């Protein structure tokens, strides 16, 4: 044990170092390892949680996007349908309008021709009346005397027969 003396080994100092170590172990456990490991664990958990949440949010976002796409497609379809229906309805209306206008025009034609006929008849009548007067006037000039009403009538009737 000479060598131990050369190195200055002292049991008290050995014991002191052991005690030192245990004190340090206690202090570090209390003030260093526990709080730091705790906070590390906590942070790890939080990161995991937020990653999970982010994943969920992404999933939800995807779902919503799909849904909105579906909705848009549906509404587009509906719009197309409405447009088609409107076109058809418009075409039908146009057709109907054409028909009615044609009817109106032909009606108007008929009426106009009737009116023309009536006018013609009326004109003929007027002409006849005037023609009677003219005939009498001409007759009076020719025979040089005025005719009575009775004579006038007879002459007009006779002439009328000739004319018609």
């Amino acid at each position, binding site marked *: 044990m000479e060598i131990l003396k*050369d*190195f*200055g*080994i*002292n049991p*008290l*100092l*050995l*014991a*002191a*170092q*052991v005690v*030192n*170590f245990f*004190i*340090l*172990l206690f*202090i*570090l*456990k209390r*003030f*260093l*390892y526990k*709080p*730091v*490991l*705790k*906070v*590390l664990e*906590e*942070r790890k958990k*939080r990161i995991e949680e937020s990653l999970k949440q982010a994943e969920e949010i992404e999933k939800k976002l995807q779902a919503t996007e799909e849904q909105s796409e579906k909705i848009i497609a549906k509404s587009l379809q509906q719009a197309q349908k409405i447009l088609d229906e409107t076109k058809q309805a418009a075409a039908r209306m146009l057709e109907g309008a054409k028909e009615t206008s044609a009817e109106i025009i032909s009606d108007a034609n008929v009426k106009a021709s009737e009116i023309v006929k009536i006018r013609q008849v009326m004109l003929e009548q007027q002409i006849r009346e005037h023609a009677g007067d003219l005939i009498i006037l001409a007759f009076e000039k020719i025979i040089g005397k005025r005719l009575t009403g009775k004579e006038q009538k007879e002459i007009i009737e006779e002439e009328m027969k000739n004319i018609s």
Partner: protein
Amino acid sequence: MEHGIVLKPEILGFYKNFPITNTLLVSWVAMAILTIVSVVATWRVKIIPSGLQNFVEAVIDWGYSTVEGLSGKKTLVLFPLVMTFFLFILTANWLGLLPGFGTITYKGEPLFRSVNSDLNMTLGLALLSAFLTHFLAVRYLGIKNYLLKWVALNPIFLFVGILEIISEFTKIISLSFRLFGNIFAGEVVLSTVAGIFAFVVPLPFYFLEIIVGFVQAAVFAMLTLVFMILLSEKHEVK
């Protein structure tokens, strides 16, 4: 006392019968530094770390993941022991490189001396490491399985058991003398080089000693960890 190569730590004074050596004083300083740093760093632990907390977290995380990679389920028990060995030895080694060590004197003796250049300190740590290793082995295996590691009816295994008992003592010696030898040699080299020319020339040796201080602390802690894991594992008896 001039710069001599002294194996024994210098005794600064006595508290009753208890000798207070300069190495013991420095080990108290190292403890105080570690305590202050850990208390300050974890004074208000924040979920978003900054400054000292950030640094301390990085160190602890590194140590924890290293221990966890080797010991698995036993990490919670082993980590504080191993990490304390590491931090204490590292702090003590680097503290010994500061100016004032060996140069400031008190009653003719150097006031500060690197902790691990005293065999008392390293042997104390090594004995403690061995004691804790065996204590944990008993705790994990139970007293019967623990004893079965050393004693067996089969003569070959009985011999192996004896060899293992011897190796347990060699472990203590190798742990303590490795640390002591490295740090003591570093001290001697530094004082010698500084004695030749005190400016600039010692710088490379200081860098070397920084590395040696880290490596020795890591080696001591890792060996302790490995011994603890190996001894607390079940011995396969066929």
